[in-house]
């Protein structure tokens, strides 16, 4: 969270990420960006637009469509003393690099008994909602959060989009940054001199007392919208932005549940074996006696993402569903 009292400005999430990349490359000569279409194309989501001209081809590297190859190369470069930012176009394609992320980045430190750490940052777009169907709409933030050895962050605000990258680069271990593609156009207020933010704690984005909504990334925005609607009905929802899915800051949500006694987790990932399941389990393990209602989850419906708009909308967590569930949990007959 910014402690700046300086002037604020409007900025999009996309611009915030771009500013973070530019800033990191300018500040540290070891940092470079590589990935598919990050240079001449300007980035699949236009995040790195203009950076090749600005920073030159030594720092902005277009790669062939070889996810495993260039993610692995990023790991090697990190081992070799560089601080690469590897952009995987979307998390769907990261599965082609899953071997490198899981079998190398996540385990090198451990396998070498602490000798070789891998200070790599891998950015990838995540999430659905753009009618691009099953192979381009996955939300794998929570899926990667299963893996010890990597850190998983999901910035939901322009402030985090701007500030998490530098902290991730300074981290000695692999950090995966998931940028929900639905957020790139989101505009937010950001301090002119906004800088790094931590990547190991959750934030209460809205204080409340009746129920805790636990969410992250694009679902956080929906949760905040739902909380506004609920406030008009007299239901005061506390909204938590997890920010980091691994390591998970359970203290923040457990304290909140200790206060509100109810929890709804909103997770764009699928329900089975999800990060929402993990959070729910931790509440059972450590917050059971504070619960006044069963923990509920709103996740994506367990289908590969369909193309048709109405089906896709129905498959994703939505504001009205959040509102309905909260009403049923908190309301007179809930």
């Amino acid at each position, binding site marked *: 969270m910014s402690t700046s009292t300086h002037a604020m400005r409007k900025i999009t999430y996309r611009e915030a990420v771009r500013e973070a990349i530019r800033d990191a490359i300018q500040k540290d000569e070891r940092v470079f960006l590589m990935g598919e279409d990050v240079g001449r194309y300007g980035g699949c989501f236009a995040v790195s637009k203009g950076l090749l001209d600005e920073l030159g081809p030594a720092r902005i590297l277009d790669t062939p469509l070889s996810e495993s190859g260039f993610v692995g190369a990023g790991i090697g470069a990190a081992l070799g003393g560089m601080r690469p930012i590897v952009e995987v176009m979307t998390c769907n394609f990261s599965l082609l690099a899953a071997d490198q992320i899981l079998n190398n980045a996540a385990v090198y430190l451990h396998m070498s008994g602490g000798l070789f750490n891998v200070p790599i940052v891998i950015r990838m777009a995540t999430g659905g909602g753009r009618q691009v169907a099953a192979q381009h709409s996955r939300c794998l933030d929570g899926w990667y959060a299963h893996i010890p050895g990597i850190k998983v962050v999901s910035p939901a605000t322009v402030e985090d989009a701007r500030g998490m990258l530098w902290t991730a680069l300074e981290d000695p271990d692999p950090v995966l940054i998931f940028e929900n593609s639905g957020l790139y156009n989101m505009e937010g207020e950001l301090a002119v001199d906004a800088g790094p933010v931590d990547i190991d704690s959750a934030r209460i984005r809205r204080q409340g007392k009746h129920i805790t909504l636990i969410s992250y990334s694009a679902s956080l925005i929906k949760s905040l919208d739902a909380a506004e609607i609920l406030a008009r009905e007299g239901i005061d929802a506390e909204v938590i932005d997890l920010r980091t899915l691994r390591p998970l800051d359970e203290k923040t949500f457990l304290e909140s549940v200790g206060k509100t006694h109810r929890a709804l987790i909103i997770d764009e990932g699928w329900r089975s074996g999800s990060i929402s399941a993990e959070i729910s389990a931790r509440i059972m393990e450590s917050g059971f006696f504070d619960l006044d209602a069963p923990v509920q989850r709103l996740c994506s419906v367990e289908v590969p993402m369909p193309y048709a708009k109405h089906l896709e909308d129905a498959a994703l967590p939505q504001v009205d569903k959040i509102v309905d569930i909260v009403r049923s949990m908190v309301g007179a*007959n809930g």
Partner: protein
Amino acid sequence: MAEFRMPSLGSDMKEGTLLEWRVKVGDRVKHGDIIAVVDTDKAAIEIEVFEDGIVETLIVQPGQKVPVGTVMALIRQEGATGARAIPVTAPALEGAPIRAAQEVAPPMERIARAVQGAFEPSAPRDETQRLRASPYARKLAAQQGVDLSLLRGTGPGGAIRATDVERAASGVESTASVAAAVEEPVTRGPVPSAEKPTPLPTGTEQPRVAADPAAMRRAIAAAMERSNREIPHYYLQTRIDLSRTLRWLESENLKRSIKERILPVVPLIKAVALALTETPELNGYWIDDRHQPQETINIGFAIALRQGGLIAPAILQADTKSIDEMMECMRDLITRARAGRLRRSEMTDATITVTSLGDLGVETVYGVIYPPQVALVGFGKVTEQPWVENGMLGIRPVLTATLAADHRATDGRRGAQFLDALNTILQEPARL
């Protein structure tokens, strides 16, 4: 058709053996009648019925051991209103297998039963209809001494939620939770108050006190049985020369009007409170296999009720009260205890119990600790006895004080220190 089931008489009761039926088929029974005797792991227990009606079938035969929740008999209701009427197919079903006779009570009847049940403290909970309450509601209920079984939940499927407990605790009743009346001494479990360690589980283990002497007897039985089963007691006893205290009390009482006079038991309780500040280990609980001494000293004072039974409401923060405050407090407690209007915290917050049976001429009291407390102090009658002090023989008013303490929580040395402190304080009554 109503089902009479093997009741659960405690969370650790899983099954029971029917010893005898006190009724036969065709007998008319009414709510509260004892209709069966059941042998449990602990003792033979008389079981009452909660329906009015006629005994239709006796399913379980004497000698049979059945799990809790097993249907033992069917009671046919007579002269029922429309809502309670047997379904039209009843004639065909009467005497038919149990399964077919299952009945879903209409909502109004369920409410009525709940209200009835509320006044029926001995109602054994049917294990097949497990109490549905949220964990937080259970925690709150335990902290505030609310008996969940008396509440009607407003949550899904009638689950009791925190709001139901809070409403009961604040005296604002929900429609069907009338009997959770705060003014009623419905709860007898000396459960730690809010911010205290995990309390006793709620439910049947938590004995309750009510107007019904039999019910109170059973509640006391349950608590004492638990005490005897779980608490390894040790006993220490000492004789205390009470002459200085009594002399001091006499002079104090001379300064007071008759209404303000102080009974001898008051300085004794005050002395217990002060002694506990020196041996705090005896003040508290044994919960979850853990000794949990309490900072606040709330002394439960055993009061016999005229209708039978006893109750031990707490003198809260006894160590901080003056003699006059304590007397006033005790007068108030006794009056309200006998009128059945104790407050919840008084019923649940005791951290130790004092019992004084001297009025009846008893010399020595060997008490049974009230779980989860870890000590009980007993006072007998003050008698004149020969007493040697400084090599001089004289006659002194002597009190026998005993300590029953939980050996899991403390050892004899600590107990001895307590009695020694008690004695010392009573030799310097000005400290009181």
